[in-house]
């Protein structure tokens, strides 16, 4: 009898702890998260979501928080040629709008050095880049074994246990969003922090952005601010001529950005 009581007490404390420490949604999903299958959680139905991101160029200050948070959260190699997200700084001279001066030292991980040499005449802005989680992904199309796939909720993911490391997808991505992880010899890319968003959390880059220049959006959620944002802002995607169905929507995207 006393053993039963102590089990009940332990369960009660555990459950209470979870409810106190975690949000309601995360609590319901917790057991599935522990099992490594968060998408199977009863409160997360993949078909109810269609994920994307709003990136407001006018708000980005180039601090590099997103890059650092992403590398830390996702265990991205700490080299200067492997990024799930990175930030570029564009300097556009008024007389040469088609020849911007672009840099992204270490992907913007360490922020950017002061700009003085271009004077006041230059237009300067930061462009955070991330996988566009395209609805018609060229990377998914070319993968010979289907290791890269689109999830039902609109996230392009890689099954590292299937990937051959042939790198065809790296060639096919028009945005340069993929890299080979030297530790696994397989391709890696932004997962839109799938392990977080399926628990009701936002991505690491959005979480740490001090100016809310990035916002995770759910295009299937009628209450999501994305709908109002799209109505009231001049929004574009990168390289629209590629017709990839990109879902990283940029506000204030200059024509010089590639």
């Amino acid at each position, binding site marked *: 009898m006393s053993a039963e009581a102590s089990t009940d007490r332990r369960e009660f404390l555990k459950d209470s702890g979870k409810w106190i420490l975690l949000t309601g949604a995360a609590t319901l999903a917790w057991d599935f998260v522990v099992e490594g299958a968060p998408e199977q959680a009863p409160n997360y139905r993949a078909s109810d979501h269609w994920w994307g991101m709003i990136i407001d160029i006018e708000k980005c200050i180039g601090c590099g928080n997103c890059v650092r948070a992403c590398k830390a959260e996702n265990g991205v190699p700490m080299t*200067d040629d492997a990024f799930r997200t*990175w930030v570029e700084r564009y300097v556009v001279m008024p007389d040469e709008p088609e020849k911007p001066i672009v840099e992204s030292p270490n992907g913007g991980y360490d922020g950017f050095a002061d700009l003085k040499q271009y004077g006041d005449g230059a237009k300067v802005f930061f462009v955070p880049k991330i996988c566009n989680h395209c609805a018609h992904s060229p990377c998914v199309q070319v993968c010979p*074994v289907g290791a890269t796939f689109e999830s039902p909720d609109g996230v392009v993911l890689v099954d590292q246990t299937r990937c051959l490391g042939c790198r065809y997808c790296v*060639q096919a991505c028009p945005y*340069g*969003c993929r890299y080979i992880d030297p530790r696994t010899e*397989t391709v890696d890319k932004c997962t839109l922090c799938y392990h977080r968003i399926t628990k009701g959390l936002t991505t690491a880059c959005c979480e740490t952005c001090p100016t809310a220049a990035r916002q995770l959006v759910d295009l299937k959620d009628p209450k999501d601010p994305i709908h109002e944002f799209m109505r009231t802002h001049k929004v574009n995607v990168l390289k629209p001529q*590629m017709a990839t169905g990109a879902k990283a929507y940029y506000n204030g995207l200059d024509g010089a950005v*590639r």
Partner: protein
Amino acid sequence: MHGVQGFMYPNELELQWSILIVLYPYLTGLVAGAFILASLERVFNVAAVKPTYRLALLTALAFLIVAPLPLQMHLGHPERSWEMYVTPHTTSAMAMFGFVYLWYLMVVLVLEIWLDYRKEIVLTWRSSTGLKKLLYGAMALWSDNISPEALALDHKLGGILTVIGIPSAFMLHGYVGFIFGSIKANPWWSTPLMPIVFLFSAIVSGIAAVMLIYMATCKMRGKKIDMLCVDTIAKYLYYAFIVDFTLEMLDLIHRLYVADESLMALDFMVKTKLFVSQIVIQIILGTLVPLALLASVQLLRWSAETRKVIYATCGMLIMVGIFAMRWNVVIGGQLFSKSFLGYTTYKLDFATKEGLLPALLFLIMPLAILWVLLKLLPPWEDDHSHAGEIRHGSTTGV
């Protein structure tokens, strides 16, 4: 550190496809070209090239055996490559590789060679002892029926296979061109001309390779080169080369005239990073010089000795030129950023997994395999009276 000029997306700093991927279109191109030359005799009845018929088939086989090896070596997980066969992703051009390859290897090439050599294999099996007997018995699949009816059937089937083989050879290499041509993210690759350019350059390189191998083997065996044969090969080489060069120039002129956004990056690259490999090696040394030499043979009356020197020179220049073409496509296509705002550098290592040393080994390996094949299945009609009889007899019979 990465040899970058201007801006590259950070993930683009290192090239993903190395010299091993350059070898892939180069080797498959030689296979397709050699097979097309063989089919000249078989399907189009160009009797003059008959001395190279079997040699061309064996050359195609030797190169085809090696063709997938650099790809396999390049993979991060070569042990998973079989998944392309068992769970192919149907929208992927690359997923079809295994099927195209196996079809060509097993259905076309191996079967055609087997049917063509079956009588000699059986005769050798019957007349030999010990291990050799076992080997040839296995090669004959322990079937020793070489009755005239059986041989006539062999010949008929071989003819059908060659007819199937020509579109298959086109598919094998046109497909390789499609792998590159269908990548819309890369303007250097993305053109519907790519499969056709690949195909004709393949025919050129394959014909040149067989011509060189034929001349070299004649010299090594102390036999006289059949000048009618090499003259005819050189004539077809010249025709194929004109088509190939025209297509490549069409592509270039189209790019220059349309002058879209990517031209600035590509134009700069051709003038700097690819100047030697594209302008000097591919276009001048690898194309214009051999074209002029081959044209001179058609226009002037050179002596047989001079023609031999011309053919040997052309053959070698073409082999280097087509390799440079593959290099410029594969490596060149990765030297510029997809932002069109910068360029990176390809650093070729030597004794590493994707270095120059394995690449050289993969280039030598087909020749070693060919040497073994020539020992197992001698293609020389002057040495084997059987072969001449069979082929001559059955040609008139069908």
